[in-house]
């Protein structure tokens, strides 16, 4: 049951979301809702080829169409030094193609016209003469000697972008050689897309007279975007105002800067008129950042009774034509080194090679803290394979190998310090909820009747909250976040943060954190994000980092305000500061609870009657540099039945027990879990951005890129354990991504569990029914 915003002491309570009142009534204000006077519209001309040389571009017919104001090509941008832009990953990307195109749907020209429809008509008139080149689609082929070099701008010429490794290769190989059992598996996490319902877009509004650019943009990280823009376009940073209005989902897709953004800004500056660019669904799916595309090989070792001995992982990462990932600078493969998961491996080694192919550039973390979904999927799949090889129950194998509670803070062999966790308790809660023993009994009976039922388990550990300044930066900017608090004279609060929510509920949850610290209600606290002119600097919302960083800043800022309030209260109560007690909603003299003052009374005094010598006002600003990351975790159990005729998988039950530390709002957490599980389900069963051999994208719309509806989505059963983070001011860890990180393996493990008696140990996702049928058919068990 949801509680009202007027609820006192709101932390930990299911307060109704503030943002829903406007969003579900259609009163949100998204990018495309904004219309400026004199605004023009931009449409992009895109390449039909995945790899081709551009012989000639003729824009004359397009430019001559009445109502067309500007046609831009790569040559025009090159003249201004803007044909290329830096990516957040330290690579560079073409804004509009010069000389050649490297992926299908690549941006080739931009047309600006009076209306969007006219811009599209004109775009169709731009003539581009292409000379097709052989496309390199398979990343393994890209690494072969003699493969065409895609990025001729790079020195030395190679399709390998980077090699990254962590851990001890020699010790790991030695430990594997000594192990009684070694299981090797090749696991592919295909290219998928975050596919937010609102695609990306922007309006560039440049005033030539003042030299000021106001840039409205679908951004998860408006401050970072302003800085990048200042660096790319050479506009002084204080003359750029970035406004990220209501954002209709991001999931990582709205972290990078896209060519359409740069084209719109250039056009606005040339034309001195506001220019809007909003991508279509197809443009979103085919050109703005994808996720995953990791080809992983794992070797996991164990002794004869199932104690793990070593883990070795080699990965080929397909980044497409440009490395447009948004990982922290020192982590080209993100936080993939969380791949040892929840298990106490004595030794481990992981390596990743980034590769260019003729596909759209990326990849971002889709609802996961930088490659954590890939890592978690791999280790949870590997544990399943190991259990099968050992003939052990997958739950028993996990219980045997969990990092025990007394080992926290735990130093992983790949270099992380896990803050807290109680993995056994979390898994046992899940087993109890689902009735694990009875299900195994039922499964034995069904198997005897020839039925296909499977039980999948995934006990994952996430790594979120990037990040501490000693390790984390993007383009040199440290990954702190911030909160600026103002208590107005009547005790109402304005809180501004450096993050930018896109559905996470910050307007409610951060209000709860602040209200709790100040003895107010969530209703008393207005949370504002997304305008760089008003919000303090921060790195934005992705990678489940908002609560660990900005949420922490909010709590600390509120505590600073409360410290000052205590001094004012002492003055009002005419007692010494040390004699003032705070009971959660009021200050009162020690031992005299009846005679107290509220925060509102103190706030009024801060402006009307401050203690002599004290600076008036009641404000606090905190830039929070987290001491460590946080490590949310969970235990997911899934039950599936497979139809032997159609080979469709029916998810009968799914129990998700999450441990995200202190819970700020259980209803919001549950909403996040439901959404993430639904996305994990889609990844396991439905989604892939696939390509044919010429590099043509085979999933350029929602007819082929399948987003589940309420009809397909299983019923989720959620529960939690609470192991607070010892270093976060309120013990919270972040949760938005856990369900996406943890669930794909649970689904797949359930299907493999159902098929295991047939000798199946692995199938690549997405698990389309026909893939399962091929197996059943081959083994002679299909209906």
């Amino acid at each position: 049951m949801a509680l009202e915003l007027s609820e006192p002491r709101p932390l930990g309570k299911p307060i109704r979301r503030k943002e829903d009142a406007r969003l579900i009534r259609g009163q949100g204000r998204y990018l495309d809702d904004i219309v400026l006077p004199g605004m023009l519209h931009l449409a992009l001309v895109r390449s039909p080829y995945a790899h081709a040389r551009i012989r000639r571009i003729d824009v004359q017919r397009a430019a001559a169409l009445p109502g067309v104001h500007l046609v831009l090509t790569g040559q025009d941008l090159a003249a201004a030094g803007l044909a290329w832009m830096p990516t957040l990953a330290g690579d560079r990307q073409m804004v509009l193609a010069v000389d050649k195109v490297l992926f299908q749907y690549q941006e080739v020209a931009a047309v600006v016209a009076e209306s969007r429809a006219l811009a599209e008509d004109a775009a169709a008139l731009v003539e581009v003469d292409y000379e097709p080149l052989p496309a390199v689609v398979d990343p393994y082929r890209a690494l072969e000697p003699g493969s065409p070099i895609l990025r001729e701008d790079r020195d030395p010429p190679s399709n390998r972008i980077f090699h990254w490794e962590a851990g001890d290769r020699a010790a790991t190989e030695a430990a594997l050689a000594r192990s009684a059992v070694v299981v090797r598996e090749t696991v592919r996490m295909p290219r998928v897309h975050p596919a937010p319902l609102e695609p990306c877009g922007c309006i560039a509004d440049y005033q030539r007279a003042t030299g000021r650019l106001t840039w409205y943009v679908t951004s998860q990280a408006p401050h970072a975007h302003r800085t990048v823009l200042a660096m790319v376009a050479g506009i002084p940073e204080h003359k750029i105002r970035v406004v990220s209005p209501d954002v209709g989902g991001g999931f990582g897709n709205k972290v990078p800067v896209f060519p359409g953004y740069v084209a719109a800004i250039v056009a606005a500056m040339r034309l001195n008129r506001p220019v809007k660019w909003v991508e279509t669904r197809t443009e979103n799916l085919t050109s703005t950042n994808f996720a995953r595309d990791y080809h992983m090989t794992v070797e996991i070792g164990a002794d004869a009774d199932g104690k793990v001995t070593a883990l070795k992982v080699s990965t080929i990462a397909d980044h497409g034509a440009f490395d447009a990932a948004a990982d922290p600078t020192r982590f080209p493969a993100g936080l993939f080194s969380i791949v040892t998961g929840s298990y106490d491996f004595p030794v481990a080694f992981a390596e990743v090679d980034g590769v260019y192919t003729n596909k759209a550039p990326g990849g971002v973390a889709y609802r996961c803290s930088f490659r954590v979904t890939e890592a978690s999927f791999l280790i949870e799949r590997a544990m399943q394979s190991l259990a099968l090889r050992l003939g052990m129950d997958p739950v028993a194998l996990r219980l045997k190998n969990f990092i025990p509670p007394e080992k926290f803070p735990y130093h992983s062999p790949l270099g992380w310090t896990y803050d807290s966790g109680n993995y056994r308790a979390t898994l046992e809660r899940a087993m109890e909820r689902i009735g694990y023993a009875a299900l195994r009994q039922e499964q034995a009976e069904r198997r005897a009747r020839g039925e296909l039922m499977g039980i999948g388990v995934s006990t994952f550990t996430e790594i979120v909250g990037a990040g501490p300044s000693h390790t984390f930066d993007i383009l040199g900017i440290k990954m702190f976040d911030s909160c600026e608090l103002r208590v107005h004279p009547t005790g109402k609060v304005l809180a501004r943060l450096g993050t930018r929510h896109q559905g996470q509920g910050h307007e409610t949850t951060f209000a709860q954190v602040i209200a709790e610290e100040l003895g107010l209600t969530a209703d008393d606290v207005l949370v504002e994000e997304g305008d760089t002119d008003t919000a303090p600097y921060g790195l934005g919302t992705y990678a489940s980092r908002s609560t660990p960083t900005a949420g922490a800043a909010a709590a600390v800022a509120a505590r600073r305000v409360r410290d000052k309030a205590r001094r004012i209260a002492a003055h009002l109560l005419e007692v010494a500061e040390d004699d003032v007690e705070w009971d959660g909603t009021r200050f009162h003299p020690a031992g005299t609870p009846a005679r107290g003052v509220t925060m509102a009374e103190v706030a009024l005094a801060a402006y009307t009657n401050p203690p002599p010598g004290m600076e008036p006002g009641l404000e606090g600003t905190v830039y929070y540099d987290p001491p460590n990351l946080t490590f949310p975790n969970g235990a997911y159990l899934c039950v599936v039945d497979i139809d032997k005729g159609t080979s469709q998988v029916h998810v009968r039950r799914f129990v998700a027990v999450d441990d995200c530390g202190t819970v700020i709002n259980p209803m919001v957490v549950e909403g996040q879990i439901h959404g993430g599980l639904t996305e994990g389900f889609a990844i396991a069963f439905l989604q892939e951005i696939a390509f044919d051999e010429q590099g043509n994208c085979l999933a350029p719309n929602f007819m082929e890129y399948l987003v589940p509806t309420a009809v397909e989505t299983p019923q989720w059963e959620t529960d939690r354990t609470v192991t607070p983070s010892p270093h976060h001011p309120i013990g919270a860890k972040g949760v938005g991504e856990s369900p996406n990180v943890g669930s794909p393996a649970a689904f797949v493990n359930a299907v493999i569990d159902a098929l295991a008696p047939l000798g199946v140990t692995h199938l690549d996702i997405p698990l389309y029914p026909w893939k399962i049928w091929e197996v059943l058919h081959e083994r002679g068990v299909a209906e």
Partner: protein
Amino acid sequence: MFPAPFGYVRAESLDEALAVLAREGPGAKILAGGQSLLPMMKLRIAEPALLVDIHRLPALTGWQETAEGLTLGAVVRHSQLERAEALQEFYPLLGRTARWIADPLVRNRGTVAGSLAHADPAGDWGAALLALGASVTLRSLTRTRELPLDAFLVDIFTTALEPDEVLTAIRIPKPAGRPFGTYLKLERKVGDFAVVGVAVNVVLDARHTVVEAGIGLAGVGPRALRAPAAEAALIGHPLESGGIREAAALAAEAADPVSDRRGSRAYKRNVVRVFVERGLKALADESRPEVGVTA
């Protein structure tokens, strides 16, 4: 996502629509529910010069039931059949097919005739209406002709319609006994076109013998297909497991699917067999006199 420029007329009568088509030639296109045509125009796969909107023409709305059968007007929408309780007794397959199409939004606008004219090989109505032995009426300014649906459907997105013709009505013969029908569809998610769609329809006489049988297949050929051998195998027998299995195997042979991202040819064929068998079994269960059932 904007269509290329086009003209638009809303016809005030069928004759006016036919006159415009005759005058404008192949550049003019009928607009019914717009649920196939408009998406293609937005993707600029279709760029008609002129749309002739017929979707409000009174002459084409609604249906008539007579002793000979049912006549559906050209702008009867999917959702109307989904909800038409009055048609359940003699034409149960219609409602059971309609509910599988797309989503409520598309069903509220899309028309049955538009679906046939569009001739998507994975469309559901082709299969269902073949199973019902339907025929279509085509009119131009100068002539009217009636074609069995099997002759109307030619190939992938291709029908016997001439550019100056409008599909004005769909006729379904009245069953010669008690009809039972159902539609089975394998889709990747709700709103998806069929990977495999199977319509099964049987008419039983008083002795529970099959007197008419129709089996239509979607998604497994260049157009919706009938399975005549399977139909013939059912006629003259009671609906029971031996005959059902045989019909299912024959229907699978009638299917001619291609391997693609939705599955291999062998997989789709097998689903046809499984669905025909399951569908007919369900009809057999439904048709069985409920002996000894108490409330």
